[in-house]
């Protein structure tokens, strides 16, 4: 047993985080969703780092590491608020040629039981993958009756409304679809942990610098306790996400489905709560567009809905409790 990342793994995280902050600085993240703002060359550079093929074998053009390493990379991406269809690209890299290299940009969505469907990043995507119960289907975004929504909640995540999803071409079977949905949930949770850490760091910085009543506001216990709670939420949810990540590679060592569901409950709450705290700690400035606090919070809300809600995840854990007693 070893649930502590190695030096190499920490360096991988730092490398990804530094690259992302350099190539996707906060200024570009802020209006990334606006038409024409998706930076294809930066996306290709991110792909060239190996970002989308961490766990793909080298023979398939990947880096040949494991899923836990992919989880660690997505945590770093979440902390850096990296924009773009990161989870979609990681899931599609082994299925759709060109995605691994960053040449083909994918979007991914689950087929809803009824009605219209909201799809992230469809406006910049070359291909849309639809996760269904019988497998994964591929669609051409240009063939869809889709509207780019004018005011996406997260200014870095463009959102389109598709009135009706056609059937599309089946490119993977039901087992693959199920597994990719699980991985998608886990990678979004990994980004949520990074997000929780990132918003905490932003708030801590501000609390150290901002002075009121003649001293840094971070010296007041009221703020200290809020921020300590943020730290604790991050570390507890990080533990859950890492354990789930290791279980993808070692499914015999535990209950992977329960671990992924539990990780979503913890990471989703941590990011949303820490993001709220980050806005609150910034006071009036936190309510402005120019401070990054709202970017963390809004991204957290988006990621929280990816491949299953917190309610659904809590239900899954409850079911596993019931099953283990039966």
């Amino acid at each position, binding site marked *: *047993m*070893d*649930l*502590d*990342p*190695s030096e190499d*793994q920490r360096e991988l995280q730092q490398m990804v985080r530094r690259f992302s902050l350099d190539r996707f600085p906060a200024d570009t993240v802020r209006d990334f969703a606006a038409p024409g703002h998706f930076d294809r060359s930066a996306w290709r550079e991110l792909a060239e780092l190996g970002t989308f093929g961490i766990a793909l074998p080298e023979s398939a053009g990947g880096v040949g590491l494991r899923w*836990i390493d992919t989880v660690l990379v997505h945590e770093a991406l979440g902390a850096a608020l990296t924009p773009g269809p990161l989870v979609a690209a990681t899931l599609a890299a082994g299925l759709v040629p060109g995605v691994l290299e960053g040449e083909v940009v994918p979007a991914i969505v689950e087929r809803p039981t009824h009605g219209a469907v909201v799809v992230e990043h469809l406006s910049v995507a070359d291909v849309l993958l639809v996760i269904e119960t019988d497998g994964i289907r591929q669609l051409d975004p240009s063939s869809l009756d889709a509207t780019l929504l004018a005011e996406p909640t997260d200014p870095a995540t463009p959102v389109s409304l598709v009135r009706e999803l056609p059937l599309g071409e089946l490119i993977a079977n039901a087992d693959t679809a199920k597994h990719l949905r699980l991985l998608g949930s886990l990678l979004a949770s990994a980004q949520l942990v990074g997000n929780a850490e990132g918003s*905490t760091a932003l708030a*801590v910085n501000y*609390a*150290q610098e901002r002075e009121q009543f003649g*001293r*840094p506001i*971070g*010296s*007041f*216990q009221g*703020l*200290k*306790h809020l*921020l*300590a*709670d943020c*730290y*604790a939420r991050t*570390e*507890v*949810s990080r*533990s*859950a996400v*890492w*354990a789930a*990540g*290791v*279980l993808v590679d*070692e499914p*015999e*060592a*535990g209950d992977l489905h*329960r*671990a992924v*569901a*539990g*990780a979503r*409950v*913890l990471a989703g709450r941590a990011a949303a709560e820490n993001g709220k705290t980050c806005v609150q700690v910034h006071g009036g400035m936190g309510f402005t567009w120019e401070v990054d606090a709202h970017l963390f919070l809004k991204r957290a809300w988006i990621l929280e809905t990816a491949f299953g809600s*917190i*309610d659904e*995840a*809590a*239900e*899954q*854990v*409850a*079911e*596993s*409790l*019931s099953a283990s*007693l039966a």
Partner: protein
Amino acid sequence: MHLRDSESDAEFRAELRAWLADAVTTLPAPPDATDWPGRRQFDTVWQNMLFEAGYAGVNWPAEYGGRGATPTQHLIFLEEAAAAKAPDVGVGFVGQMHAGPTLIAEGTPEQQAHHLRGILTGDHVWCQGFSEPGAGSDLASLRTRAIRDGDDYVVTGQKIWTSHAMVADYCELLVRTDPDAAKHKGITWLILPMDTPGIDVRPLMTVQGSAEFAELFLDEVRIPVANRVGEENDGWRVTNVTLSFERGTGFVGELLDTTNIMGELVELAQRTPRGAGTVWDDDGLRRDIGAIAAELDALWAFTKRNVSQGAKGGMAMGSGSAFKMSYATVVHKLGDIALRVLDRSSLAFDDIGGESTGAQIHHKLKGFAVGIGGGTSQIQQNIIAERVLGLPRER
């Protein structure tokens, strides 16, 4: 990063599991929770069995009589013992988890020779005389006075929250030897034999209705200078040395116990009729329990992370605090859900309707013990804010 056992860990686990399966069947019936002499007797029997089998002091160094196992194997020991429903450390807690490790780090060879084996066999029971009515979170402000008189210290003062004092043989005692020095610089660590004249032990009834704790009144108690651990006025450092002995396993027994209680609550919810079905059919309640289970799973993963770091040299600063305050919150939340499941069966500590309802209420109240004992959650928040996040001190 791995979660599976290494070959040697798998072997350790298999041998231990086989031994435990057999050993627990030979235990006498557990005594009533209020029968302290009975509890001491029961815990000593179990500790003796562990000692004979080579499982006493699993995490203690081999040269001091322990097994010298890795932190991971210590975690496996605690995990398997809980799974086998073996007794927990019980009255041996202070000796095995704190006094023993302190003596290993700071005791003289004579003190080690006299005390360590008794702690491992279970024959010596220790209690902790640290907190005072005026020194809780601010432990270093303690005032129990020790005045040197020849080869003795003469000690007068009052201690509180002294678990197991009524059945203990020894007490690890913090006293003030220099009232003029800065508060951290005038404290000394002494071994107090509990049969020394001048000690009055008064049980302290808790909100759980049991006398887990005691108050200790010391009136001119003579303690030989030879019982001093470390130098005079160096007791604060001696006390904190033991913390580095902690490798992330401090709350494992409690965490597994809470996990068991949660499992029992799920079964209770599934058997308890409500409306047209059972309590378990309530979507809101079921999801809340699911979320609690997710939090307990996460704390178990956090434990493994801390133990992994401990095995590599030391836990990250703040991890222990983050774990403790999060754990306290989960116990409180679980207790809140227990009241919703129990409904009117929560009106007594007695088991009602043939179900083990009393245990759920007891565990609910335990949330306070977790969030207060050993440094309140608010103190843990301060530690994280100042030492991990680098926020300025208030004063």
